[in-house]
């Protein structure tokens, strides 16, 4: 699961959850891949991405590479910033661990890179 996907995931399908965002991450295994850099795509995604949630996720994973804590002005033309955003959104992958609902504490296990978002019948 890439951090871009984590950034849009919520637990709001569960009963009793209002927002369900952002999900906490407890990672047992993290992988770093090399993914082609597409500045146009990253630029557009930055508009959708919840930046504080991205920073929190990076922190949870213990990734100490510097991710700027706020989006810089004129990011569309700042290649260095876009490359950093790309690295965190697209190249860091959680392979094994758990995602945690911030309101109920319910865990969604991540196995082999795939989060299990299936809810039990009594949870929906």
């Amino acid at each position, binding site marked *: *699961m*890439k951090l*871009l*996907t984590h*950034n*849009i*995931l*919520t*637990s*709001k*399908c569960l009963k009793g959850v209002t927002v*369900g*965002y952002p999900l906490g991450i407890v990672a047992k295994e993290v992988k770093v891949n090399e993914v082609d850099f*597409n500045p*146009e*795509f990253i630029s*557009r*995604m930055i508009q*959708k991405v*919840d930046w504080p949630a991205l920073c929190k996720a990076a922190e949870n994973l213990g990734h100490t590479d510097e991710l700027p804590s706020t989006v810089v002005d004129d990011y569309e033309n700042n290649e260095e910033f876009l490359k950093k955003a790309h690295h965190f959104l*697209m190249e860091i992958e959680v392979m094994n661990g758990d995602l945690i609902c911030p309101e109920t504490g319910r865990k969604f296990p991540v196995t*082999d*890179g*795939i*989060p*299990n*978002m*299936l*809810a039990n*019948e009594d949870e*929906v």
Partner: protein
Amino acid sequence: MSGRPEHQAPPEIFYGEDEARKYSRNTRMMEIQLTMSERAVELLCLPENQPCHLIDLGCGSGLSGETLTEQGHVWTGVDISSAMLGVAKEREVEGDLLLGDLGQGLPFRAGAFDGAISISALQWLCNADQRSHNPAKRLYIFFSSLYSCLSRGSRAIFQFYPENSSQVELITSQAMKAGFTGGLVVDYPNSTKAKKFFLCLMTGGQQPLPAALGVDSREDAPNHVAFSQKRDRVKQLRSGKAPKKSRDWILEKKERRRRQGKETRDDSKFTGRKRPSHVW
């Protein structure tokens, strides 16, 4: 023919390890899925040359997702069968995969995606696989959560196999209730083999539906007709004999009987003549 798959078992059981493997190795299946995926992306009407963030609903083993990657998009796939997702992982598809039940709703933030496609999956949502399931309610939960996680103005295209018109009615009514506009596009409506149903849902208010393929009767349905013609031709050459019941076949048969020493009428200009059809 055992009938429709969704009547045999819930999708996560039907698509177990063996079926998942079979599905992803059948070349004819892969070709059909590829064509349908390309058509679905065409119907999405995305801005040209712009990589988009898409969701593949019922992504299975990633056959349709690969089309999205090929066209330069970034996608996330959701499926209920872990066996199918396992095959997708083996095939190293680019998209992120999630194990989830569409009928429980899509767990995404508002406006997360620029578009959605779904190939051969929607009909699975119309069955109650557990006693607690209410298909209409599940469809509504699915469509309303999909509506919210799509950015305004984007579309969701579903290629699916409707069992009957009341199923189509059920699906479209829940989609409209959830806020979508749009409708059904039927490609090659006059061909049993090539006919394909695409539910085109839009979030940006009422827009004209895209034109269906093969509605102009001069346009041939692709692939399927040509394929069966080819097969017949090959069969003929291989056997080396004339096709059944033709005049040549009759003359050959009579020769065979003579060689076997059986009593056979002499050949004449009337042998194998086309008889007038019965008029009672």
